[in-house]
């Protein structure tokens, strides 16, 4: 019997720390949600587990820093992932570590561009979903990620990232966004980045009561 300890309770999954074939792992278990009907719940959990495992594996092979997938069981909503240890990016965004945070955010921008280049959108790109491990920003939690070719989905990643900067790190929003875009455009190219930022603007303007739209609309 292998010992498992509770690591974290995410919004949709339980993370347990345990060992698998002698390796330190995180077991991500998508638990049943009591507020969803059984049919919807099972379909969502299975689909999300399969897609998540596929996406993480592809990213790992392509050189994007993500934890390695070691085992998958979609019907149980289970994925075993390499244990990646370190502070969350969110925790480093403060006055006395801003220099480091900017460096990691810039690197994150590069990795996100690489990920988008592979036709993958993360779906929940926040500063809580980046762990600093071996001086590298590891992207975690691909629970809402998807294979896509739509600029809209890539734009949503950036939109979400900007939104979390606004809501949780509003004092450093401008500098961190600059670092992120610097990293992003160094991989995706200027033109592609500009195109994407236009989409982001559009997404933001679609939201209700947006300041920018008011200015445009008069």
């Amino acid at each position, binding site marked *: 019997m292998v010992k498992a300890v509770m690591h974290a309770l995410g919004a*949709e999954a339980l993370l347990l720390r345990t060992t698998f074939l002698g390796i330190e792992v995180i077991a991500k278990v998508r638990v049943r*949600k009591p*507020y969803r009907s059984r049919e*919807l719940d099972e*379909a969502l959990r299975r689909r999300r587990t399969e897609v998540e495992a596929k996406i993480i594996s592809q990213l790992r092979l392509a050189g994007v820093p993500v934890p390695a997938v070691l085992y998958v069981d979609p019907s149980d909503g289970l994925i075993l992932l390499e244990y990646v240890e370190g502070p969350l990016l969110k925790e480093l965004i403060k006055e006395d570590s801003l220099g480091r945070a900017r460096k990691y955010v810039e690197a994150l921008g590069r990795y996100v561009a690489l990920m988008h280049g592979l036709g993958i959108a993360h779906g*929940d790109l926040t500063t809580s979903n980046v762990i600093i491990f071996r001086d590298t920003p590891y992207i975690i939690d691909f629970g809402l990620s998807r294979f896509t070719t739509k600029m809209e989905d890539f734009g949503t990643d950036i939109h979400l990232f900007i939104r979390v900067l606004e809501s949780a790190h509003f004092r450093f929003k401008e500098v961190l966004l600059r670092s992120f875009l610097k990293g992003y455009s160094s991989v995706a190219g200027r033109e592609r980045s500009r195109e994407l930022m236009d989409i982001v603007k559009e*997404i933001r303007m679609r939201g209700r*009561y947006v300041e920018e739209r008011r200015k445009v609309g008069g």
Partner: protein
Amino acid sequence: MVVLGIESTAHTFGVGIVQDSEPLILADARTKYVPEKGGIHPREASLHFMSEGPSTILEAFRQVGITPDEVDAFSVALGPGLGPCLRVGATFARALSAYYGKPLVPVNHAVAHIEIGKVLTGAEDPLIVYLSGGNTIIAAYEAGRYRVFGETLDIALGNFIDTFVREVGLAPPYVVEGKHQLEICAESGKRFVDLPYVVKGQDVSFSGLLTAALKAYRSGKWGLPDICLSVREVAYSAIVEVAERGLSHTGKKEILLVGGVAASRVLRDKFEAMAKERGVSVYVVPPKYAVDNGVMIAWTGLLAFREGVTVKVEEARVNQRWRLDEVDIPWMSRGGGRDG
């Protein structure tokens, strides 16, 4: 301290009068514009407000038995909402303030929904789930403002379910005895129709679901109750999921449901099931104050006025897209509210 508030952002022209000691609510007068068919026509609603507004204001004063001279300040919802409707309320409020020489307090409609919810339920620092015809917002207080953690990327939940039931011929009326037509129809649903469940991070999107649900209906392959059931399950589950993400992100221990759609029993049960698992409490605004009303504007006006928030009459312009997270909330930093 006695403050009068005027609400006129959408279909309701409401006038409330409140004070900062028990009983808080002194007067609550309302008149509602009910369209003959379809949704709200902004011009028609504003015309209704213009003709019924004065008597509604007088009615509020009659309820308390005071004169306008005895009010300490006038407050008004300057946004967000429909321009023609907002302008009617703003015009009445500016006139009252100028004529009686009393301060004018600007109030954000979304903030007002939150504040009346907090004071009536006792929630102190909740994750706010604001669901109405025009709004779908997950927010929480942080560093001086209500920060938006999630919202709809396109149409609001209320707008979505209203449009759906209208398109399939179930409405108007949209709500019968406190129950939405979608929920009434869903009660006899049995089979689950696969519809797009869209959660993007902390945001939801309903436009794809609307298209798919209407397509499923028109295909004739499923019964309407099955589609209603599936629409309800998918839409409500997505909202609860983003709220759960908001809790996980903010660490708040309370959930406060505000806005017209918050009255739904089914939705509330789903929230309670989620909250029980996470060990947080759910608070729901009483139905009477979950919908648009003048009392919530007056109460928020009072909170703001106590902090010295006023606006000059000549600068009191409406803002149709006045975002929740643009408003400073000075009373929260001092623990604000009833005894603040």
